[in-house]
Structure formats: structure tokens, C-alpha cells
């Protein structure tokens, strides 16, 4: 049996913004001035509008100012904007995919999105509402995957099939965004006592 090997990853480096968010990087007008993934809401999207913001923090406690994050999630009804979605039609006014740089001065990232509905675990049980997050930056050799869960979904979180199988339950809070009004705060710690749980997906 002969399988090809996946192309090996290399760091996104310090200039990932040129290729992925060129207008943010100062290449005004490139691709019509529209950085891909900047707006996830393209119309009158259903569901609750939320903001997610935070920092990506290195092992010295310093926020990364050259990182890029992408998120992927279901719509408010729990449906994906994907040709493989067979359970119904996803909200046409919501893409489900966002891409944002961390701010070059403050290191803060921010997504304007809708709160996702629940999607099933392979055995049919429902997962708690969550968002997939992917982080790349200089010094990160292979993009890091994690998930955002929501602090106001306590009962769904406690029944979640993925969260409940995590051996070190004291690390689960690293995956839970803290609600403050319509904003959720979610810091990602690359190292240290609060190191975020990263997944092999």
C-alpha cells in the first residue's frame, strides 16, 4: 500500500499578512481591497450577533502582534455553509468562516459573528456550541487548532462528548470564552500554567 505523505508544514512567518490579508498589510486595493474572511455576516443573518476578542499570548506573557487566526463554525441553527451539509440549508447571510490578524500594536484579535447552534458528535449526541480556531504565526511550525466554547452554555458544556473525555478537567476552562454583554473574551495561551488545550484534528 502506497500513500503519499502530506506536504510538511512550515511556519507562516512574520509576513503572513501580505498573502492572506493584503489590505491589512498595506497593499491597498489588492483583490479589490477585500481581505478574505473579514466579514462573516453578509446580510440579515439569523441568530444572536456576538463579538469574540482576545489575545494570543506567548510563554513570556507577551501578546503576539504578528499572528493570524481563522475560525470556522456552524450558523445559528447548527448548519454549516458547506456542500457536505445534508441536514438543511445553512443561512445564506452567514459564511461561517472568518480570518483576522492580531493588531500590530495591541495584539488584540476580534471576530464579529453569530453564536453557533449545536452540531452532532459522530454517534448522534449533540455537542455544545463551539467554534473551531486555527492560529498561525512566526515561531509556530504547524498551525494550532483549538475550540471556543461559551461560558453561558454550562449545561451543554458539561454534557459535551469532547470536553467530558479530557483527562485533565482543570484545563477545560482554557477552552471557554467568558461572556461580558454581547462580547466573549477568549485568550489563547501558547505555553505556561494556563496553556490552552490544542487539538489534533
Amino acid at each position, binding site marked *: 500500500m502506497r*500513500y*503519499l*505523505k*502530506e*506536504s*510538511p*508544514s*512550515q*511556519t*507562516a*512567518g*512574520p*509576513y*503572513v*499578512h*501580505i*498573502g*492572506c490579508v*493584503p489590505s491589512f*498589510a498595506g*497593499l491597498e486595493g*489588492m*483583490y479589490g481591497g477585500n481581505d*478574505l*474572511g473579514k466579514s462573516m455576516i453578509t446580510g440579515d443573518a439569523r441568530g444572536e450577533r456576538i463579538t469574540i476578542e482576545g489575545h494570543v499570548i*506567548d*510563554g513570556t506573557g*507577551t501578546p503576539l502582534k504578528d499572528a493570524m487566526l*481563522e475560525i*470556522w463554525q*456552524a450558523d445559528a441553527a447548527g448548519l*454549516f455553509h*458547506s*456542500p*457536505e451539509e445534508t441536514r438543511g440549508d445553512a443561512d445564506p447571510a452567514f459564511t*461561517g468562516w472568518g480570518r483576522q490578524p492580531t493588531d*500590530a500594536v495591541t495584539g488584540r484579535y476580534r471576530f464579529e459573528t453569530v453564536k453557533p447552534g449545536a452540531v*452532532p*458528535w*459522530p454517534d448522534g449526541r449533540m455537542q455544545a456550541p*463551539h467554534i*473551531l480556531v*486555527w492560529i*498561525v504565526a512566526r*515561531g*509556530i*511550525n*504547524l*498551525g*494550532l*487548532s483549538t475550540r471556543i466554547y461559551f461560558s453561558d452554555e454550562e449545561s451543554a458544556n458539561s454534557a459535551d462528548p469532547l470536553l467530558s473525555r479530557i483527562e485533565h478537567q482543570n*484545563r477545560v476552562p482554557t477552552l471557554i470564552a467568558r461572556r461580558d454583554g454581547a462580547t466573549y473574551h477568549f485568550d489563547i495561551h501558547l*505555553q505556561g500554567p494556563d*496553556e*490552552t*488545550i*490544542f*487539538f*489534533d*484534528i
Partner: protein
Amino acid sequence: MTKGFKPGTFFQRDFDWHPPPLTPGYKTSIARSPQRARIAFDNTMTEATGPVFGHGMLGDLDNDLTLNYARPGQSAQGPRIILHGHVLDQEARPVPNALLECWQANAGGRYRHKKDGYLAPLDPDFGGCGRTITDERGYYAIRTIQPGPYPWPNAVNDWRPAHIHFSLFGQGFAQRLITQVYFEGDPHIALCPIVNTIPDKAAIDTLVAKLDMNHTAPMDARAYRMDFVLRGRRQTMFENKMEGM
């Protein structure tokens, strides 16, 4: 009743083939590498699906870096090349509709970026970014100039080999990948601490584009071939009961 196969979850990633998080020769990785084990689980729909990009979003010059930032009548300076190949999965099947985004330094090794202070000059006709989407055969091609090598602050005399950064979207978020493409014959490949984050020489070789004289544009541009491989995918059997049965 209809029976068939539908795309399932992705093959397990080989973390011995990819660079590990902590690679002290590349100093920035030291404070940015997670130290605890990744937690593994089989893909749910969240990981198995991903955004889909249509050919309709592309502009005519998006895949031509020699022209997409150039002033009218001008083009970027440097050795003109076509970089082309296929995006395949691990079973060598083409991956159609994959979005490829690339970025690179100019022919002198300088990026158009606030944080790049290298003394090589900017090229007024070169922005340094491009993108394309694979066709139904998984094929892609970009036209650009060969980037220059450049020094970078790591050890006191570290230079990057000439390279083009690539971001790839396959058919599910679990295939998401960023990597770099090098050029056959460059002696800096063997010396580079970022290249050498990859433990296996055979893996490094898969990132080296080969001169491809069959696909040059005569009197215009030389060609280099680079094939990308994204994770393979299991097939899941399904049965659909027809209405009323």
C-alpha cells in the same frame, strides 16, 4: 434504497513528518511552542467541513504577481517564472477547488511590509501576493518572479533560501496547511534553521520545486513544478431509504 460512499473523516496526521512545535534552532519557536500533548479526536462535521471558494471571486491578475501590483505598462523586476503543479490528496487524487494564497519577497529579498527593514530596495511594481484556485484536475499555476534570499535575525548570519509561502485550503478544515516552497539547487536550503525544523530530509525534498523545461513560456518565463499533498480522506458507506419504503 440507494447505497454509496460519501466523504468521511481525514487520515491521521503524521506528526513525525511535520516539524515539532519546539525547534530551538529556530529561536522564535521557543516561547511560542505548546508544551503539552495535543488532544486527539476523530473529525466531527466541524473539522471535516470547511469554507469553499469559487473561481468567480478571482480577478484576472490574481495569479500573476509580475503584473498584479505593477503600474500600467510595467512589470515586476527579476527572473520570470511559472510555478505550477497539482494539489493531490494522500491517495494521489486531485483536490479540485483548493484555494492557494501565496506571498514572497521581491527579487532582492525584500518584503513589502512595515516590519521588513532589509536594505534591498522595494520594487515599485511588485506587491508580493497572489492567489489561485485549482481546476477540476487539481491543477494550479502562478506567474511570478523568483524571490531573492534574505538575511533574518536568528543566529547572526542566518539567511533564508529563496522561497514562496503558500496557504492551502482543501475540502475540510482538517486539511488546512501553510508551508513554503524552495527552489532546486539553492545551497541555502541545507543551511536554513526554518527548513531544518523539518526532521526528515525526504520531507524537506518534497518542498523543493524542480526546474521544468517542458512548461516554460519560451522567451518569457522558466517553469518550476511543485505538487502539494493534503491529507487523505476515509469514505463512509451510507444507505438512503427512499420515500415510502
